[in-house]
């Protein structure tokens, strides 16, 4: 079967910037960060205070009691995003389509917040038992499984957990299943909900969290800000989408992966270079055709300088004339959900002709000498963009997108 084009026909998102696509886009284009003091968890005794939470989130607004009992917050975000994605796609799920639809989700921590809470009972409160739903809430595939159950989807359904690259790996795998004719539709993306005391303590010990805010590519950047949320996409073969008159929001045109084989936490230049080149090759694109990169841009001293070097190496002279931003400065670093949030930002940017900025920007670090969009969104008609994800463990995944009108 010849390779098929892959259309994005649905999108759903929930994160610190909003509860749906419109709200999130409004914040992204305004350069308005969703970062503030952490409220959902007691942070006394923690060295950092800020996070990018879904504020005032009320489970009951989305799930009844029986259902909610089964769902860790990360799985709730996956479902909420999938519901919006399917609704916005306008697709009618027939029995036949349900059999040929895939669900691929990404998550780094899964439902470890539920496990953390359960183990408080065991270790601190000296109870002898843990809640019987701890395992189904904790499993990293809970998001994918719950989406499949809610919508009766019985095709290939699985979860990829590659730390901060999880969502990009998921999108890439779903993209290839459609391109290669394995399935006729896919729901793909990722979600994360890392705000629990044990997990925050573990991140504190890594010493990569900023004590104020996230300023990617700035000289005075001091680390990342954790975020939560999820984004899901409905992917379909281009011709099928056209034939049913779907509103095509964008196109995935390529996917590249690599491993650093270097260090478990220190970033490398070569790994990201290989994954960006692989994405370009997969898409059949020349570097000069890329007009925007939604960077991994965590705001840590190590990542941003390495990523800038990698972009310079891949794009050469053109690196100076392509726009770069890190939307993590607004929605925080949602770990295994990050790639999905950033894919949403990228697709909306291409669709609207407005590139979201890097918020909280102060002074460009000379070591990150790129055309970083600073604080204010930029109007630009861009046809092709990359979205980078580089994970702890040295696992890299890059997705290439094309504007819908292209």
């Amino acid at each position, binding site marked *: 079967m010849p390779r098929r084009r892959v259309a994005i026909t649905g999108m759903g998102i929930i994160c610190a910037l909003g509860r749906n696509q419109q709200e999130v886009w409004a914040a992204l284009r305004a350069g308005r960060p969703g970062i503030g003091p952490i409220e959902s968890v007691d942070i006394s005794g923690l*060295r950092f205070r800020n996070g990018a939470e879904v504020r005032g989130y009320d489970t009951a607004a989305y799930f009844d009691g029986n259902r909610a009992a089964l769902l860790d917050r990360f799985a709730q975000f996956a479902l909420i995003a999938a519901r919006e994605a399917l609704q916005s796609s306008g697709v009618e799920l027939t029995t036949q389509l349900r059999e040929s639809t895939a669900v691929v989700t990404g998550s780094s921590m899964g439902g470890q917040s539920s496990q953390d809470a359960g183990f408080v009972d065991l270790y601190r409160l000296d109870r002898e038992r843990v809640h019987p739903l701890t395992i189904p809430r904790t499993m990293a595939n809970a998001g994918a499984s719950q989406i499949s159950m809610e919508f009766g989807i019985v095709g290939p359904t699985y979860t990829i957990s590659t730390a901060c690259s999880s969502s990009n790996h998921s999108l890439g795998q779903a993209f290839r299943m459609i391109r290669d004719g394995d399935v006729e539709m896919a729901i793909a993306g990722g979600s994360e909900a890392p705000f629990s005391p044990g997990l925050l303590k573990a991140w504190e*010990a*890594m*010493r990569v969290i900023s004590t104020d805010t996230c300023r990617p590519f700035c000289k005075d950047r*001091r680390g990342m800000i954790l975020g939560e949320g999820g984004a899901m996409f409905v992917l379909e073969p281009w011709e099928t989408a056209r034939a049913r008159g779907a509103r095509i929001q964008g196109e995935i045109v390529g996917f590249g992966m690599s491993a650093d084989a270097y*260090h478990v*936490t220190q970033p490398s230049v070569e790994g990201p270079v290989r994954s960006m080149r692989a994405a370009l090759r997969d898409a059949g694109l020349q570097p000069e055709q890329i007009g925007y990169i939604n960077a991994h841009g965590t705001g840590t001293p*190590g990542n941003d300088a390495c990523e800038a070097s990698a972009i310079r190496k891949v794009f050469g002279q053109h690196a100076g004339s392509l726009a770069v931003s890190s939307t993590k400065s607004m929605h925080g670093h949602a770990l295994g959900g990050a790639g999905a949030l950033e894919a949403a930002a990228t697709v909306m940017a291409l669709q609207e002709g407005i590139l979201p900025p890097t918020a909280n920007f102060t002074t460009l670090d000379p070591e990150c000498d790129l055309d970083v969009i600073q604080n204010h969104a930029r109007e630009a008609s861009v046809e092709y963009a990359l979205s980078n994800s580089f994970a702890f463990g040295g696992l890299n995944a890059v997705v290439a997108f094309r504007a819908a009108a292209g």
Partner: protein
Amino acid sequence: MSDPLFDEVIGILAAAKRRPPDTISPDNSLVELGFDSLDVITTVFELESKFKISISDDHVRSLRTVNDVVEGVRTLIAEKTTHA
């Protein structure tokens, strides 16, 4: 002159890199002793536990030499004693 604190800190650094304490001098940089970023945060974790101090992220990022570590720990212990 005997400096028990110095010896204790050197002992922790030496154990972290599995080398004899007498091969470490105050002027050595952490990098030349083979400390990468993970070695630094795990060693600082040990020092915090051992001396019951808290070392800020910015302070950790500023540590370059063995002497920086020893004197940083000494200062934090002194501050703790003053505040106690």
